[in-house]
């Protein structure tokens, strides 16, 4: 004996009895409206060390299936020991970074000193939440050295929720990066507590991770900018990624 489920009518009645009426599936009404956002792709991430921090961002700018530029930065140095990295929409990133620089300059004029990384992080959160109902389409990372000289990494959502964490990744390759960082930095699933990585090993790991993201994420590639922030300041270098 066949139950109600095998009959199409029975199913429809069952669904209807729960209050919603099935609509025909073919040719749903098309709606055209202003779409101000686009994702230009790319991956950014940062890791905090005891006396330093490492940040990484690829330099590919894409739109759809096309590469717009192979050499566009996603990073801006805001103070002598603080860098902001942004994934998402490039135009929004440019606007946001510009605004941050203006506000930090104003802060410097007002207080006769640089803002701390903590202050920059709070400022970015405020700026993002200011546009709560028309957000910047950006996914940010603030990285630097805090007032005690310890590595500091802050992760954000698009509307300003943020927290200080040991490592964070954003952008189209974020999921790929996070899984490796969870395993290698967070050691979230390892019982043996190994020695934490030293600075050189950490930088090497970071380079490996962005290269790996470039292997599998089509929007990540070309080059990666490497920022090492320590007591000497912000040190920038570049590594090659796949260009396909």
């Amino acid at each position: 004996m066949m139950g109600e489920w095998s009959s199409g009518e029975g199913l429809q009645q069952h669904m209807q009895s729960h209050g919603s009426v099935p609509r025909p599936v073919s040719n749903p009404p098309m709606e055209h409206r202003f779409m101000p956002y686009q994702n230009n792709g790319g991956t950014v991430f940062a890791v905090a060390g005891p006396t330093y921090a490492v940040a990484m961002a690829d330099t590919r700018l894409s739109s759809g299936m096309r590469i717009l530029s192979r050499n566009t930065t996603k990073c801006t140095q805001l103070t002598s020991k603080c860098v902001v990295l942004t994934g998402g929409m490039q135009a929004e990133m440019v606007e946001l970074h510009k605004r941050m620089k203006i506000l930090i300059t104003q802060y410097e004029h007002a207080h006769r000193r640089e803002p701390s990384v903590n202050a920059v992080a709070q400022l970015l959160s405020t700026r993002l939440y200011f546009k709560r109902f028309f957000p910047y389409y950006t996914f940010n990372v603030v990285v630097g050295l805090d007032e005690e000289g310890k590595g500091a990494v802050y992760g954000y959502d698009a509307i300003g929720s943020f927290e200080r964490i040991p490592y964070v990744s954003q952008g189209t390759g974020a999921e790929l990066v996070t899984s490796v960082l969870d395993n290698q930095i967070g050691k979230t699933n390892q019982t043996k507590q190994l020695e934490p990585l030293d600075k050189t090993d950490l930088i090497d790991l970071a380079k490996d991770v962005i290269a790996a993201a470039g292997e599998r994420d089509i929007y990540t590639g070309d080059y990666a900018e490497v920022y090492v922030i320590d007591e000497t300041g912000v040190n920038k270098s570049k590594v090659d990624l796949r260009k396909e």
Partner: protein
Amino acid sequence: MASGTLSAPAPPFVMGVPSAACSRADEVGTGTTILAVSYKGGVVLAADTRTSAGAYVVNRASRKISKVHDKIYVCRSGSAADTQALTQFVKYYLNIHSLELGELPSVNTAATLFQSFHYDYKDMLMSGLIVAGWDGKRGGQIYSLPIGGSKIKVNVTAGGSGSVYISGLIDALYKEDMTKEEAQQLALKLLSHAMARDASSGGMVRMTTISEDGVEETTFEGDKLPTPA
């Protein structure tokens, strides 16, 4: 049971019309320019050679005039897949019909076959055709077969998105009982004017002339047309 799809299919591939625009629900404008002109003793069929998908020209040397039988040809506009498949069907049935008949089929028979397919599958086909040819009964003939299933016998006609630009020119220049050369020159002039104005028509002009004496196929390259595109 609702008919639906698991994932949205790509928009149908269309000769001349931006494919994103034709969701099959509201297909009005068909691409390309096709036309046929009758003269004393035969007919001339002509078509451009552009097939595009959106802004991209997929084929710049396509053949939109297809053979249905020895002396019956068809100009195709609309969905490339639909019109190609339809032509193959009609070709098949007409060949069998011709074998049973033991002589060349009439152009009217071919057009009627196309018409019945058009009418029976009007909800599925996006196809606008011009069937033309020559037979011993009625000489050179042209049938216009727009979407929906009608069949109109005409002396001259144009179809596709480019036809709207030349309807006045056709009225002004067409005369009955032209010579073959006059008809060919007229077809070339009409088509090159349409190609100059219509973005989804272009490339070359392919022309097929059919009369009692046989079938003649000519191609005019795009940079050698009377009206430069």
